[in-house]
């Protein structure tokens, strides 16, 4: 079997990784982007993902794990399809970040790092996301939502739910 056929990733991502490892003065500079992009596609860093990335870079899976565990965005079990990340750091805290976080907990029935039973949402309290002047702010996956009110929490959840229903009925 060829190396391409053995990949876990989509052909697009596999091709992207092939290019990525050649891009830098040293192959392992591609490691952190690869981990994040792999997680975007697979959902989390499974053992198989870690093994393949190690092989592609030419380092041990243990070495990959050693690096991956350092970075807050990388995870080793699945999150919800929509990962809600609520900033409660100082600028957001002063403008109601904790209230926003509590509202999400109530509405989703889960706490920090929890995942809803249907796997649609997960929730995280996160450190500063660089939206301090538009606080309180959250990210759902990579999308920022700024200057939130309690009511908008419900609207955001409803938005993602209806998006999901539309996608499901197609």
């Amino acid at each position, binding site marked *: 079997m060829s190396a391409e056929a053995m990949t876990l990733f989509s052909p697009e991502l596999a091709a992207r990784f092939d290019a990525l490892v050649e*891009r*830098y*003065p*040293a*192959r*392992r*500079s*591609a*490691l*952190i*982007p690869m*981990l*994040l992009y792999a997680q975007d596609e697979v959902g989390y860093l499974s053992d198989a993902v870690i093994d393949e990335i190690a092989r592609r*870079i030419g380092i041990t899976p243990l070495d990959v794990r*050693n*690096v991956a565990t*350092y*970075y*807050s*965005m*990388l995870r080793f079990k699945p999150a919800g399809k929509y990962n809600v990340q609520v900033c*409660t*750091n*100082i*600028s957001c*805290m*002063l*403008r109601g970040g*904790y209230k926003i976080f509590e509202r999400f907990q109530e509405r989703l029935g889960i706490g920090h790092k929890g995942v809803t039973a249907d796997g649609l949402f997960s929730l995280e309290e996160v*450190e*500063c*996301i*660089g*939206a*301090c*002047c*538009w*606080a309180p702010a959250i*990210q759902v996956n*990579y*999308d*920022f939502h*700024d*200057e939130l009110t309690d009511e908008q929490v419900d609207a955001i959840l409803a938005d993602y739910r209806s998006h999901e229903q539309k996608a499901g009925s197609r």
Partner: protein
Amino acid sequence: MPRLVSHPDEVKIVTSRFGKGAAKIDTYLELGGYASARKALSEGADWIINEMKASGLRGRGGAGFPTGMKWSFVPKQSAKPKYVLVNGDESEPGTCKDHLIFLHDPHAVIEGTIIAGMAIGAKTGFIYLRGEYRYLIQIVERAVAEAYERGFLGKNIFGSETEFQVIVQTGAGAYEVGEESALMESLEGKRGVPRIKPPFPAVVGLYGGPTVINNAETIATVPHVLAMGGAAYAAVGSERNGGTRLFGLSGHIERPGVYELPMGYSLRRMIYEVGGGVRGGRKLKAVVPGGSSTPVLLPEEIDIGMDFDQVGKAGSMLGSGGVVVIDDQTCMVEFALRTIQFYQHESCGWCIPCREGTDWLKKSLTRFHAGFGTEKDIDNIQYLAENMMGRTFCPLGDAAAMPTLGFVKKFRREFEEHLHGKPCPFAHHPEVELV
């Protein structure tokens, strides 16, 4: 989309192209873009560095080191390739200025990177953005692709014999990576643990080669400095603090936002005129002047000019320019706790004073805020913080200790009010996890 704000006192240099669609290269060119890079190419490295020195531009990441001088430290001859590394890991709480630069003016960052490359004789530049900024990474990547298409990047930039490549890199969530040596480690595919200095990056940096590392705002300022001339840029600011700064007003402020104001601008005026005062007409209790690591200032300490030297003289730091305004309804113990929670979470764990110090500070403050503190805890918190200062390889230990010392010293009475089983007088966030 983050809201743009404006105030008549602003001097729009770095923000002059914000909201004008300059992320597209044609618009950027119409607005005078890439003219500085072309001029730099014809004038040469010595001219660039002299203009930068004359500009008085100091590092916008927080340390305030003069940019021109930093560039001049890179050896002219080097057996190993040299690199430019742009720090867009923006993670200091209270700071979101680079967010806007990447969103509205990514080509300014690219152009600044090219100019820095010419100044030090590098052929490769890296622009590292924090992983959470995925949509901004895509904007910068598109801009880089446009610059390649026009021949502004590549083997023969602007039709010359000079080569310059730019690589955009994503992080994956780590405040510590904003420290320059940890940033290099991360870019080399490792844990973001700082390196021991010396050697300094200008001598031994990325992949062992001489490396200049600048904050994204610093780099985005470079093309403007060359366009205006260093002396003209310097004249905008205050003494030994050239130009403008992107100040981020956040917290209990009526009109939060990122404002570009001359260095040395009055902090009082920034809060009450530019920001519209404390939200809801409340009273000011405290200001964190330059991101969460900078010691807090009291209302009677805000009659200062916001530049590196004046804020330093007032016992704090200009830091990243993130001004966090705190009203009189805020519990300073809770604020101190939330600040230290962050540093505890972000400590890389290499240096024991930082790893253990942030952890014990978090535990002490958590207990304290919950009403289980003792008189001795207050001194212990101060003692812990004092013993972290200057005892770590990178500034994260200091970044955690400095604000803590400020809170204890300036708000000791408020700590005492939490004693003897008394609940937090503000009762903002009473349910805390006891550890």
